[in-house]
């Protein structure tokens, strides 16, 4: 199963990025093969629709599960249409969150914030 996490650095020890749509990178980890790679988030500097674009990258990488502290409504819509489950991260590194997920200690993310729709800079 492929797991994605928004991260601040390209490292398994990276902290989880507080933003999903604006995260600099995504860690993609396959828990069946133990392989991982990092994706540059093309949405990081988008004027608007960053959540949609970031979610698109997650969909395109055939991810099954996203671990994130927060997620917007539009990204959630994309991910749910693609049947990707979203779990809420806990404080700690990407690796610690993967361990927690595998140990079934993470809960599904329930609150999705409204989009900013290009108003970020106002």
């Amino acid at each position, binding site marked *: 199963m492929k797991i994605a996490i928004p991260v601040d650095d390209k490292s398994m020890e990276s902290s989880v990025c507080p933003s999903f749509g604006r995260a600099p990178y995504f860690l993609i980890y396959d828990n069946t093969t133990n392989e991982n790679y990092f994706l540059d988030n093309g949405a990081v500097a988008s004027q608007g*629709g960053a959540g*949609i*674009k970031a*979610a698109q990258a997650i*969909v395109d990488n055939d991810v099954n599960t996203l671990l994130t502290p927060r997620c917007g409504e*539009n990204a959630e819509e994309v991910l749910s*249409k*693609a049947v990707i489950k979203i779990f809420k991260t806990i404080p700690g590194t990407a690796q610690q969150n993967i361990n927690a997920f595998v140990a079934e200690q993470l809960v599904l993310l329930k609150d999705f914030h409204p989009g900013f*729709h290009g108003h970020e800079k106002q």
Partner: protein
Amino acid sequence: MKSNSMKIAVLSGKGGTGKTLVSVNLACVAERAIYIDCDVEEPNGHLFFKPVYVSGENITIRMPSVNDTLCNGCRKCVDFCKFNALAFIKGRPYVFDDVCHSCGGCILVCPEKAMTETEKIIGEVKKGVSGNVAVNTGILKPGEESGVPIIKKLLESCEADENLLTIIDCPPGSNCVVMESIKDADYCILVAEPTLFGVHNLSMVYELVKLFNKPYGVVLNKCLDGENPAEKFCMEKNVPILGRILFDNELGKLNSDAKIAVRESEKYRIMFLSLLETVLKEVKNMGFGCGY
């Protein structure tokens, strides 16, 4: 601009400075005027005019929608969209209406003509009459992204005829909707408050009208005894001061009762008539031919 008509925009960097007070009263002292409320998120000129409505029209924007039988899943539309308003999931594009800018690009790039346009109502334009003033109001539906299409409609529908003064009551601030509102104005009146915060906001609209190369002048509202930072700003920048409105209980009371001061009191009629004359003189000095 036709020779005997003129469009005057009234703007300010923040809300509550007196744009509507100035706009409504100037329109009322003119012989014949159109008052256009471009503050589509919070139009309030109609509260003063209480117009008899003669027409209303819904304003729509065009939204793409996907025809599933024609779509071959080539993804060109999704890759084209610079606003990230389209997502591609399980071989099918999805449109996010609140992110879409109605540019029509996805429709152009679709090789299968699977993208069609649907109309979405974002608000309305209402037209009415109040005495000598035609009152046109734009109303944006709550939650809609941008009032620009409504303002475009408001301003294109006011093709000025002879000897008609057009007063454009702008939204507060200096963003897209304000730019759209002043675009075709012949003159800009900046309304300013005598506070440091007021000066900050005045300087923003001052930069804007300079950028747009519009002739402009300032009305100092809520003037009190003592130093007026907005006046100081005008002196320093050599900005013409068109008039001063005192911080005045009587005027405040009339305004808060949604009454039009110039229709209630001769004193205010004279005051705003003199302001209008000053504005028209300014415009003439700028080289506009006008018939007032």
